[in-house]
């Protein structure tokens, strides 16, 4: 298990390094003035140009530049945002927790609900119920993230007036304690619900297929032979074994959820890293964009490690073979 973990950590670090190198190469390969590309669509004062040339060693050979760049990134120096006039790291530190709150909550709720729907859909004896779930899931799977957000806003915020349309809280809030939490929750409700719906459809689709596959396995026949009841078979054999393959795709799915943040935060004007990305793209604020990309790559890689470990922990076949080397 320890060896398994170490191996995955090492691989993760390599992947991250690779991503940074890849980004560096992309930045380098852009034709034109590198300083201008780095700064974006803004006039470059000569002092800044000199400083940047010095900092990135632009007159040095490729590998030495790459080395400097990596060293900076490793020290948490992600550059300076011309658009916000702040270090990129500081902006990310402020915004990432918000995105994590939003995407993380929606992602977790979505997985739980999706698994439940998938199981129910696959094991219900009524073909009609299964068909209904399948159709809902298919439609949900086809809806663009931001459109779901818009629909929810139109329904719950505009038509029914239950919830605020955007933002993450009123500019000036006097609420404290529980009220403050509640107030926050009302602002988070719609974006989180959007996330949840989309993640749930993704998971449900996969889960249903997985349960269907499990039900065809020989050990289900064995369980029936032992005279176990339907309920006992489902709880004891079907659920756990069908969740395993779903776990394996959760890491990538988390990446998709983080990507969804870009669109959703824009719909709800939510000040997280997603809207930071969009604003920076619009302002051609390259340093900030690169910061967001690296951050998202990090979070996906971390999530992949978590998923790998979780899988290894749940599936004895991995656990044993890895502990033996």
């Amino acid at each position, binding site marked *: 298990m320890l060896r398994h973990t170490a191996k995955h950590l090492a691989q993760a670090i390599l992947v991250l390094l690779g991503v940074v190198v890849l980004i560096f190469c992309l930045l380098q390969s852009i034709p034109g003035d590198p300083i201008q590309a780095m700064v974006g669509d803004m006039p470059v004062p000569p002092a800044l140009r000199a400083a940047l040339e010095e900092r990135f060693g632009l007159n040095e050979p490729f590998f030495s530049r790459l080395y400097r760049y990596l060293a900076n990134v490793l020290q948490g120096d992600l550059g300076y945002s011309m658009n916000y006039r702040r270090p990129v790291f500081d902006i990310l530190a402020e915004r990432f927790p918000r995105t994590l709150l939003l995407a993380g909550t929606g992602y977790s709720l979505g997985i739980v609900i999706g698994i439940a729907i998938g199981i129910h859909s696959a094991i219900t004896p009524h073909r009609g119920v299964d068909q209904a779930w399948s159709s809902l899931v298919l439609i949900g799977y086809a809806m663009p993230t931001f459109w779901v957000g818009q629909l929810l806003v139109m329904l719950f915020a505009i038509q029914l007036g239950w919830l605020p349309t955007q933002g993450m809280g009123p500019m000036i809030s006097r609420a404290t304690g529980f009220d403050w939490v509640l107030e926050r929750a009302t602002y988070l409700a719609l974006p989180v619900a959007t996330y949840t719906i989309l993640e749930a459809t993704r998971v449900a689709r996969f889960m249903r297929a997985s349960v269907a596959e499990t039900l065809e396995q*020989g*050990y289900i*026949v064995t369980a029936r032979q032992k005279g176990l009841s339907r309920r006992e078979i489902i709880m004891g054999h079907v659920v756990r074994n069908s969740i395993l393959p779903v776990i394996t795709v959760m890491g990538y799915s988390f990446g998709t959820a983080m990507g969804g943040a870009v669109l959703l935060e824009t719909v709800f004007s939510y000040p997280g890293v997603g809207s930071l990305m969009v604003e920076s793209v619009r302002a051609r604020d390259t340093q900030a964009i690169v910061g967001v990309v690296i951050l998202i790559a990090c979070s996906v890689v971390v999530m992949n490690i978590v998923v790998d470990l979780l899988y290894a922990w749940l599936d004895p076949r991995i656990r044993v073979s890895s502990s033996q080397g």
Partner: protein
Amino acid sequence: MSGKPAVSTLLSARDVKVHLRVHGRIVKAVDGVDLDVHPGQCVGIVGESGSGKSTLGRAMTRLLPNVELAELSGAVRFCGEDVLAMAPEAMRALRRHRGFSMVFQDPLSYLNPTLRIDRQLAEALRHLADRNAVRQRSEELLRQVGLDDTARILRLYPHELSGGMRQRVMIAMALAPDPQMLVADEPTTALDATVQYQVIQTLRRLNKERNLAMLIITHDLGMVAELCEHVYVMHGGKIVESADVFTLFDAPRNDYTASLLAAARRLHQTRSLV
């Protein structure tokens, strides 16, 4: 029947038909089969792929997989009760208390890969009072099928066992309700020759020591010769011949049986051996 008086039949199938719908056509997988197994008797059903022998086995034990059935008819009496007509609840009770289990070809896929052997055995022993009793009985069952390192095996996962051990664990599980009969579908086909031989010996011992009746479904005439007293030959969904094992091998009455035997003799044409 090889000396044993036919007091009563343990399992009797009468006019069993299993017709399936495959790609819109009706396939008569089992087409009017009669068959008897007496207490303590070891009966073989032998046939080639497509003969319907597996379908028959699974129909009789009510373990047909999810397929479109065009017809499932006839009577299968096990200890006097019609299995095919039983309510699901009664069927579960029958399986729990009297055991009417089937052992399959590929033991790996018939064991849950994520649970230790002890958990899987315990599920078959829920009629026992407490955990100690379950454990004792589990170890006893494993010893009965020739597995001695019981404490260790109980803590292992299926993939940590060899093929032969897995198949014996499957047999032990089938023995949990102390059944009078065991149905085995190609129980040794996936195993190596030496392991196959051990499993056959285990089955033979169980047949002798516990007077356990067996219905062995196989394509292997060698296995039939080794293990069975009475043989049914199946071809195209029908029983084409039913005879005592010696009679069948010495003087087959049916042409198909004769051709099977000829093929077997061609393959077993021994030059160097006894």
